[in-house]
């Protein structure tokens, strides 16, 4: 965990709803893995009051790229103070051939960082955009990613095939009602599959994080036998290990 001051190098709008903010290089950024994020504050003013969770979508020796909604204005050369890295990397299986990423009623931003590394390791990636997430335009994503749109009732074409074909599934849902949504995800996957093995279906939590270090307990989630913190132990939790009641 470290505080860094980075510069905004470039801002590029990638679709109607999102922009990519290019941050200057720091060696720490190269350690960022899919699932991890940064807590950022632009400038010296506490507006917004809390730091925002910035999800990187790409990291290289020229810096990190984070995806932000176009409703926020970012100007090149503006300094950004970030605390990172927040959270743990996604836990992949050793033998992985196909991964299903699902965004339900939320933009898929929190999932996108996984794509470059998975493709580089010859893993097939399917991105399913459900409900309002279907409005997210994906032309900027690598062409190898299969993108499927579906409705808010978890219906999409070839649903049974894609779920059966995937070795692992990572689901991001509407942060305003995460537990209700994950209960729904669990129910639907239980309908589709005879059983849900461990390390197969992960819920990716996107809570507002006041501290990001596990101090404030605002991102506590219930797991079987206790609680866990999304900021230090998440954001991805195996839904078989969660207490969804």
């Amino acid at each position, binding site marked *: 965990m470290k505080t860094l*001051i980075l510069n905004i190098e470039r801002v590029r709008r990638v679709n109607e709803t999102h922009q990519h903010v290019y941050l200057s290089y720091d060696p720490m950024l190269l350690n960022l893995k899919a699932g991890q994020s940064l807590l950022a504050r632009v400038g010296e003013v506490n507006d917004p009051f809390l730091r925002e969770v910035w999800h990187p979508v790409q990291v290289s020796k020229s810096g990190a790229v984070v995806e932000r909604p176009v409703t926020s204005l970012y100007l090149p050369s503006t300094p950004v103070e970030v605390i990172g890295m927040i959270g743990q990397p996604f836990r992949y299986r050793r033998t992985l051939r196909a991964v299903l990423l699902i965004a339900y009623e939320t933009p898929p931003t929190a999932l996108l960082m996984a794509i470059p590394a998975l493709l580089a390791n010859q893993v097939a990636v399917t991105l399913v955009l459900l409900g309002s997430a279907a409005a997210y335009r994906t032309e900027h994503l690598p062409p190898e990613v299969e993108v499927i749109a579906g409705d808010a009732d978890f219906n999409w074409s070839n649903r049974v095939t894609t779920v059966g074909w995937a070795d692992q599934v990572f689901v991001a849902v509407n942060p305003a009602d995460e537990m209700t949504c994950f209960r729904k995800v669990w129910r639907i996957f239980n309908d589709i599959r005879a059983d849900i093995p461990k390390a197969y279906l992960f819920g990716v939590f996107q809570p*507002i994080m*006041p501290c*990001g270090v596990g101090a404030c307990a605002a991102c506590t*989630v219930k797991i079987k036998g206790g*609680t866990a913190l999304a900021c230090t132990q998440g954001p991805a939790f195996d839904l078989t290990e969660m207490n969804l009641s």
Partner: protein
Amino acid sequence: MTILLTNSAKGALSINTPVMPAAGVFGYGDEYRALIQVEKLGAVVTNPVTYSPWSPTASTRVIPLPAGVLVHTGLPNPGLSKVISAHRNLWSRMPVPVIVHLVVGSPNEAARGAERVDEEDSIAGVEMGIADDIDVKDAADQVRAFVKAGEKPLIVRLPFGATADFAEALIDAGAGAVVLCAPPRGTARDASGRLVSGRLYGGLIKPLVLRLVGQMARRLKAPVIGAGGIMNPQDARDYLEAGAVAVQVDAVTWTNPKMLEVIARDLGGLVVTQPMGALPDEWYPGMGDTERMKRVSDAETPDGERRD
């Protein structure tokens, strides 16, 4: 500089720097170890702990507001005994006193909590969170039960809006100091449109609490600790000027962790004793890693090899 934090007859608690984190913002002591030098603080106040385990609230926990934030966690914690077991070793190694923030629901719980805490040498004192809607007699009974059953110095954190009479009753019951005060409660709509109640944090709280501190510090027979809306060293100094013996820093620890340390350095007298040629990041945030890098380069030989 030694500051007497409590006037408890059973055992006074003293600190070296009049700055500590408020309950609920700093975890149990080591969460911020990579970002803050804990030894610069006067004490560490833990997250709220209940005698029995509490679960997190099922509703929205955090609602960002224009000038602050509303937080309602439900105070999730595994219970006093488990918290102590998990952190005993850490607390015994802490360079500053550890004050456990205890939330009790009855005099019986207060007494059992006092007995449990008394067994632990690593705990320097207890801060008891007084519920917002409790009447003065019940609150005094809880304090009395704690003091009767235990030996640790007791600080009480008063609810926002508590009167001087309320505070005096708790001091008469045995409280060694009072924290003014718990963050006020508010209600706001979350992203899905539901109304959520919780505690309010932000700079606007400070003027409200500063007035209370100014009024109560003159009247109360016990030390007053100011807490609420501190965003920078000047805010903290204002509390001391109003009569507080120490301050607790809350949400700025989340938004700018280094500021807690800066306030502690500032009020801990380090700035006035700043030696000639001191590196700036000893005193101010955001100045980079000069000090750390200098230490690293000092430890290196000219050809880049480490001496050890």
